[in-house]
């Protein structure tokens, strides 16, 4: 039986002979014997594909929370949207899947053009003209935006609304150890960023969520005004589905847009690979992280695409590069272009609208229940936070027994206390509704929660 290696023992023998060698070991003679592995790896012997498939079927069964069997109300940047068969079929074309970074544009027009289309869509959704060809995820995209702000202002202070997803803020804090950024997290009061509670003077960046991670639609002009005052970059972390109908980051005056692109055709995937959306204003283009595809012509003057402004990148600029990103999330970017092409102008509007409709319907039913109260009265889009009479984590567990993944326990998301929540955080549940949820499912949620809280 085979693994994936073609060489027969004859092949190996004759190849070694060609090299004047006696054994495969000779090829490794440069490795000091003191460190050579004497007995190979301590890894179980190989199994056949069907044997491994059986093992993975076991893992799979142990994941009770799969959205195909447990109705999903969890969100927080990872959404259970419709991904039609046609998008899966196109995005899994092996030409897209098994190529690498388009270093040779003459044979990579497929990926290059798909990215160009993706870039166009990101620019339109963000209202900003300079997108890039993808980053790992929203959290790391935010870090790149902070680095850009540092580059633009030469300042270290990053003022971040705690309406930004707790994980994104956590990632920003982690990377700040290296960049020596000072991360200032602005508390929410009543679900809305309390900008007055911190000193933003000398900020490199002002960062707002839109909607914020609790689903609330904040008035971004407050943050924008601060940014303008401080000559800081205004960074907006936005829900790209909501961006289909809301005022764009660019319209609010943002210099940088970041977002989580998972919503566009990528399955929940237990958190990755996702897609870091990124776009900025013209004046930041030389500080753009990662790759960007540009249009040009070939030697016969035909339109062609190519990765461009490469002089910013690590392989050329090395320690002075705008970012260290090399491998990114191109396949997800291609997928996003396909999914958005499928949704089209009005499909995107439609799913955004349905998310909002479903969320408001559910919200309105739930706030009438005993043991449920609102966290805030502010307007929200497709996600909302509730305060429950039982710990949210417990409610999630009990709801799971009823076939519902009821949402995210905010205390889990924040790993403890968090400036975003000015009440007992254990009681707060974050609920999301996508266009896939039916009224029947929403009504069932209500009755199940009633039971659980009874």
């Amino acid at each position: 039986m085979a693994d994936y290696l073609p060489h027969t023992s004859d092949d190996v023998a004759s190849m070694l002979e060609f090299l004047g060698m006696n054994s495969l070991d000779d090829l490794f003679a440069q490795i000091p014997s003191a460190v050579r592995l004497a007995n190979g790896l301590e890894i179980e012997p190989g199994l056949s594909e069907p044997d491994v498939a059986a093992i993975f079927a076991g893992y799979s069964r142990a994941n009770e929370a799969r959205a195909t069997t447990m109705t999903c109300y969890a969100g927080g940047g990872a959404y259970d949207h419709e991904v039609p068969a046609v998008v899966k079929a196109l995005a899994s074309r092996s030409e897209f899947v098994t190529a690498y970074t388009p270093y040779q544009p003459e044979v990579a027009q497929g990926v290059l053009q798909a990215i160009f289309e993706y870039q166009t869509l990101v620019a339109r959704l963000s209202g900003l003209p300079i997108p890039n060809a993808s980053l790992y995820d929203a959290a790391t995209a935010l870090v790149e935006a902070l680095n850009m702000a540092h580059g633009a202002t030469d300042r270290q202070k990053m003022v971040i609304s705690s309406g930004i997803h707790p994980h994104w803020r956590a990632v920003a804090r982690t990377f700040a150890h290296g960049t020596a950024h000072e991360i200032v997290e602005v508390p929410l009061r009543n679900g809305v960023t309390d900008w007055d509670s911190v000193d933003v003077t000398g900020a490199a960046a002002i960062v707002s969520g839109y909607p914020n991670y609790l689903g609330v639609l904040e008035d971004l002009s407050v943050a924008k005004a601060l940014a303008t005052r401080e000559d800081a970059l205004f960074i907006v972390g936005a829900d790209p589905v909501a961006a289909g109908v809301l005022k764009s980051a660019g319209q609010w005056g943002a210099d940088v847009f970041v977002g989580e692109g998972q919503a566009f055709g990528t399955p929940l995937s237990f958190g990755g690979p996702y897609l870091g959306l990124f776009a900025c204003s013209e004046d930041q283009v030389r500080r753009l992280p990662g790759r960007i595809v540009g249009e040009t012509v070939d030697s016969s003057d035909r339109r062609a695409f190519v990765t461009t402004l490469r002089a910013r990148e690590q392989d050329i600029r090395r320690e002075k590069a705008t970012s260290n990103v090399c491998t990114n999330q191109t396949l997800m970017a291609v997928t996003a272009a396909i999914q958005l092409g499928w949704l089209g102008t009005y499909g995107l509007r439609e799913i955004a609208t349905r998310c909002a409709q479903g969320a408001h319907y559910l919200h309105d039913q739930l706030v009438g229940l005993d043991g449920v109260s609102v966290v805030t009265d502010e307007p929200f889009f497709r996600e909302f936070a509730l305060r429950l009479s039982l710990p949210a984590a417990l409610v999630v567990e009990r709801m799971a027994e009823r076939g519902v993944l009821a949402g995210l326990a905010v205390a889990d998301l924040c790993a403890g206390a968090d400036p975003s929540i000015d009440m007992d955080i254990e009681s707060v549940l974050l609920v999301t509704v996508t266009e896939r949820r039916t009224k029947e499912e929403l009504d069932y949620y209500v009755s199940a929660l009633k039971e659980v809280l009874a």
Partner: protein
Amino acid sequence: MSKAPAPGGRAASAPIMGHESEPTLFQMSVPDRSAYQLRTTGVPALELDQLVPRAHLNEVVVAIAEVSERDLVAHFTRLSHRQFSVDLGMYPLGSCTMKYNPKFCDAIANDPGLNAVHPGAPASLSQGWLEIMVTLEEKLCAITGMSAATLQPAAGAAGELTGLLLMRAFHETNGDDRRRVLIPDSAHGTNPASVTLGGYEVTTVPSNERGLVDLDALKAALGPDVAGIMLTNPNTVGLFEEEIIDIARAVHDVGGLLYYDGANLNAILGAVRPGDMGFDIVHMNLHKTFATPHGGGGPGAGPVAVAQRLVDFLPGPKATRMPDGSFDWVAPERSIGRVHGWHGNSLVLARALSYIDVHGGEGLTRVAQHAVLNANWLRHRLRAILPAAYDRVCMHECTLKATELKAKFGVRGLDVAKALLEEGFHAPTVYFPLIVEEALMFEPTETESVQTLEALAQAIERIAQRAQDDPESLHRAPQSTPVSRVDEARAARHLIATADAER
């Protein structure tokens, strides 16, 4: 000896063509067409402005595109026909390990039991995923000889930065203020870029005439302010750093840590382990060594494994096997925090585990052996035309030089690379590493047969002949590709990054 070439080794059927460009999605758009279909929900269909204050609503409709499903399919299918890929032919792109990736691993990643799980689901409802992560961590540690690992970093570069933050946390915890990180001049660009982001300064260590770290220069560069060194071994020239034990000792002696850039791990699986060589921190490129297709530029995954003394600093929370056999999320004691929005590129992790399970320890060892055998065979086979930059046994890739072709015929490495595209092969990596003049770095990987290698060699022989007969034609290559040589300067001079950009 040379084997007969593989009749099918290269993309003999020249996989891609089309001298007319494919229109963009936007050019295909026609008002009122659409493709989307959504579930019937029965949810009351209130108008948006009944739900959301008007001030938040965009007054203009964001134009995506308006195409039928049929046109969407035709468009992206045609684009796919304008794209070279591993599945179409050999892709010997040095440093990138463009091996054949089993379709089986794709199927694993497509299981709804894995890919339909929300990352925020409680551990009790995602035990399968946590077990995958714990199991993978154990196996990666066994492969690298380390004690524990984080699976969060989304790619190699993210792993590097994570590793540098671990280095920083370690030194800081020891009250040790160190500033510099050493990097060989042959290093991949992500290394210095990551060092900067890690808050360190780069000190470049020159290579010696053998293509290896110059030990004396290294020692000279060392000092108490050195936080560590980043090395890939085999290095980016494809050579094994033979003095690694001395290097490790020297760095450790000044209190520095050794970081292993695992992009080249494919070469040494089962032969030697970074941990045994003295490395303290190791990132792996799962997309290279453990068979995730590169996706046109990603996704990847760059787990970081560390020696015992660094375990407590790892990013978290980490999937952890609990005493009762169940799995839970646990944050390491002095964790540097999260480096990813969730748990890492989980589906890539699952693929890697399935790949490791199929191969087992012995199979992984064979992967490295055959990868190294192929690189050496190719190096030896091509020595008359493209001599190796350093002429001795290499590891999984060989760095060759087009200097002779340039001197004799004015044909540069880039021309050779472009001509290879016409021959149905992907080009090797060109002009990297930077320390080698007219470098062409070939990484055949273990999944190519010797017949395919021979077919590549014969294509290069034809190109060499052409260099002699008609060097001009090589400057104009490629011609048979979907587009001919692309004007890169123009793209940079006037950026057109979107269909809406001014032209």
